């Protein structure tokens, strides 16, 4: 699946990259991202995830062709 990150996550990952492992849920993806980049773990644990332009929770099932957006905590204003 395709992963796209924003803001401070770009200090840890490429802006867009592919994950080829079989991951069943958002929780699995969250854990996988922490595993492949432990320095991002604290930030990853605070992130929200988006599929098809909607926020999804950790139990949301993932498909191999999903485009998943990872959102760090907001800091607008």
């Amino acid at each position, binding site marked *: 699946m395709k992963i796209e990150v*924003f803001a*401070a996550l770009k200090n840890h990952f490429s802006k867009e990259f592919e994950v080829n492992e079989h991951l069943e849920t958002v929780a699995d993806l969250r854990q996988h991202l922490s595993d492949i980049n432990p320095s991002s773990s604290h930030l990853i644990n605070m992130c*929200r995830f988006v599929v098809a332009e909607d926020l999804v929770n950790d139990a949301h099932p993932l498909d191999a062709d999903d485009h998943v957006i990872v959102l760090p905590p907001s*800091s*607008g*204003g």
Partner: protein
Amino acid sequence: MEYITEEALDLTGLLSGSHHPAAGAVVLFSGDVRDNNVGRRVSHIDYESYVPLASKMMRQILEDAKARWNLTIAVAQHRIGKVQVLESAVVVITASAHRSEAYASNRYIIDRIKHEVPIWKCEYFEDGTSIWGGNCNCHAETGDPNKHIYESENG
């Protein structure tokens, strides 16, 4: 009107379009870039957003505020890209029959925008360094990434 824009915010234009015959109070909040943060000199701020969701969320926040306070006008716009000191990064305008609703709803809207909407600032300092900053860490106290401290303050 676009909720997220790369253009400079037209505060006077937005304000002039926010008067309403049923509104006795109009409140405009402008979040400006200031020249310092935690003792360091700020050069500028670069804002980034996930625009599709940010736009959807800002529209919903404004609809929530209009319904809750019976507003005649609720407008908000956030700028992305490079924003210089003295420039406005975000504007919120609320209009209602009386000032208490206009003030309260304006605070509600800007709080939700800052905490919930996927927009991020990267502060650039005059010494050449930069940092992604001002993250919402409410979850550390609430235990829930979707529960923010201000929500209890606003009832």
